[in-house]
């Protein structure tokens, strides 16, 4: 009776010849390209999150400081500050157009700023990471 280990050994020898190679010579390069692209996407996503968090934190801090100083920017008037009329008139106008009249506009502008920032970051990353 043939030993099971011998049958196994023969099976192993036989199956060794079933090993296959990838014939595409560019396989490594194309795979690495995909991975680097993925890596960039992940970083951009992380940057979006980071920028958003920084944006929220900085804005909250500004609102807090103003609130602690007894100023509420939503009720900001020229008389309350007592600064030159022309400058504050323009600030007031800008404030009205982006905050009071449409808060969404303000948010969109902020996101627009973030997107520009991210595009700059992404183009920097593209320059930094080139596949082998």
């Amino acid at each position: 009776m043939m030993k099971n280990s011998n049958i196994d050994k023969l099976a192993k020898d036989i199956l060794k010849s079933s090993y296959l190679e990838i014939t595409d010579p560019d396989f490594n390069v194309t795979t690495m390209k995909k991975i680097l692209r993925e890596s960039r996407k992940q970083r951009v996503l992380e940057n979006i999150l980071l920028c958003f968090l920084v944006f929220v934190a900085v804005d909250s801090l500004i609102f807090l400081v103003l609130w602690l100083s007894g100023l509420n920017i939503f009720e900001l008037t020229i008389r309350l500050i007592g600064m030159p009329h022309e400058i504050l008139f323009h600030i007031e106008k800008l404030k009205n157009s982006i905050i009071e009249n449409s808060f969404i506009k303000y948010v969109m502008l902020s996101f627009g700023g973030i997107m520009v920032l991210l595009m700059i970051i992404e183009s920097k990353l593209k320059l930094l990471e080139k596949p082998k």
Partner: protein
Amino acid sequence: MDDLYLKLVLEGNTSKFSYFIEKYKGMAFSIAFRIVNNREDAEEIVQDAFLKAFRSLDKFRKDSKFSTWFYRIVVNSSLSRARNKRPELSSIDEEDITDVVVESVESAYSSLDLSDQKKFVHLALEELSIENRLLLTLYYLNENSIDEITEITGIAQENVKMKLHRARNKMYKILNRNLKSEIQSLL
């Protein structure tokens, strides 16, 4: 070595991932090919598997070897691709093989040159079911342990042993039949 490169990649040195591609692409391709039975599909699966592995690299807990974890991704991707493609083949009976069968395969197989050996093994594997091909590839070609095969395929340990035994017997029977008919055609 895998751990070192894993650390480097996780630290942001993405280009070091090429180490894993170079090391595991061959075996991953053999596994994928045995399941989908098509070169192009297998290459695509391996590429996607590397991408999936990279995406979830931070979730790899090191409870097992990187290769085991990665081959599981390859097997799952291949199985989902193969599921809708073709029916399983396996008409060979499951009785135990005799020493005569093994000895006859051994002598006929060793008399073949390398390219014919490859051809006959390939033909025999093609006749087996996907599961049988996969188990034989993992155990005999990749030399994975039963525990690792359990982890890669999700088949219970006891079933792996039994299925492996049956798969090996079937392979011998198919090889014996094919080799016999080849010899007869030569005479």
